[in-house]
């Protein structure tokens, strides 16, 4: 039986990808950011999953306004890194897990989540930067990755509550897969940032840290937070944090199991315009 062993949460700032790709990780500006992931890289090596279910958002890369799926599940065999305007990042192609992805689709759609299945798409920094942060610069990513893209670009985006319930349904789906697989679920994006208008550059350190606290200890209550609170308190792009609730909803305690172990926690300001937050939670 497949099972979800851990969840990982991290920001996915594009400038972090640039810093990695251009070998700037040791520069004074970047060093404190990457230091926060030293432990995580080692941890991932020692806890290598078979599959990562990676929740992220596309940033007007694979999806234009032609088609805007609320939830898009990648069921293809592979996904190439996207050209976001500066050429594709020099990172490995993502190898998918079509069998598990199709299985999850089957289960989750029957649980009333109206997914869009995607068999052809490129993946942008939203997906590749978290992999780089956690894996460094390998020849190939250490395991298979199922991309799961959430619309947080055009309103209305799915509610925190909906995301949390989806996580619950994903857990159920994974656990009904016959093959013995170690699956991690990652939630990415955020934390506080605003890329537009007179309020650009907004950071809310206190709110972010309370979000981390509550994500750990009272995720169900946290999931009820309305969108406008994210936007008001964490900036217009802070809404990306709803994606973390998908990963959190898939943890064992939500289905009546024991609370997760907080393996790692990190917070740093800034990376470019953004507050970097990072958590690793393990199911005991």
């Amino acid at each position, binding site marked *: 039986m497949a099972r979800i062993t851990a969840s990982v949460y991290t920001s996915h700032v*594009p*400038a972090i990808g*640039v810093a990695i790709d251009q070998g700037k990780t040791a520069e004074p*500006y970047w060093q404190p950011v990457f230091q926060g992931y030293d432990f995580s890289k080692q941890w991932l090596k020692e806890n290598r999953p078979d599959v990562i279910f990676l929740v992220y958002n596309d*940033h*007007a*890369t694979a999806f*234009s*306004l*032609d088609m805007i799926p609320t939830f898009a599940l990648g069921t293809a065999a592979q996904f190439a890194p996207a*050209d*976001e*305007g*500066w050429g594709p990042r020099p990172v490995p192609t993502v190898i998918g897990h079509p069998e598990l992805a199709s299985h999850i689709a089957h289960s989750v759609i029957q649980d009333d989540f109206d997914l869009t299945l995607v068999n052809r798409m490129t993946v942008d920094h939203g997906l590749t930067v978290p992999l780089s942060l956690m894996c460094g610069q390998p020849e190939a990513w250490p395991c298979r990755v199922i991309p799961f893209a959430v619309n947080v*670009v*055009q*309103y*209305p985006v799915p509610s925190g509550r909906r995301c949390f319930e989806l996580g619950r349904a994903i857990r159920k789906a994974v656990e009904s897969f016959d093959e013995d697989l170690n699956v991690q679920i990652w939630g990415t994006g955020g934390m*506080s940032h*605003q*890329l*537009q*208008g*007179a*309020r*650009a*550059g*907004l*950071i*809310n*350190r206190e*709110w972010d840290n309370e979000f981390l606290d509550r994500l750990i200890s009272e995720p169900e209550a946290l999931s009820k937070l*309305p*969108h*406008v609170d994210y*936007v*008001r*308190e964490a900036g*217009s*792009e802070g809404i990306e944090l709803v994606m973390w609730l998908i990963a959190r909803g898939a943890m064992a305690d939500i289905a009546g199991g024991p609370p997760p172990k907080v393996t790692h926690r990190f917070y740093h*300001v*800034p990376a*470019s*315009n953004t*507050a970097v937050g990072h958590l690793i939670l393990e199911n005991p």
Partner: protein
Amino acid sequence: MALEKPYQDIPGTIIFDAEQSRRGYWLNQFCMSLMTEENRRRFKADERAYLDDWAMTEAQKDAVMQRDLNECMRLGGNIYFLAKIGATDGLSFQQMAGSMTGMSEAEYRDMMVKGGRSIEGNRFVGEDGDAQASHQPQGQTHQQGDQQRPESK
């Protein structure tokens, strides 16, 4: 329309909802077209001619040519789409975001390194934070009550 839009009382912030998306459809699709080298070249060679191929309003075309991202946002642009213009110009997200505040690049970068813009006074329209209209535009160039836009962004 009778739908609640509770996000309209946040200062200096435009939410890209279905209504903005309709308004900015061609503006944003134009931006997407800049994801190929060939199109970036054509755009740079003659911006006006390139823009005329799209069903954009005059105001949208002007805002693009003036690189007035705040105006682009008001006219339905979304920042992730508009970023393709920035990429064409060789600008980073930090440079683009900064350009919308009136601050110089150095001022904005400095603000970020010091922990970013404070939330205090910037939650609701009408408070007294630095993102409120009464304090716009920001940055050294505007400190003398000068309401002019900066020469170049």
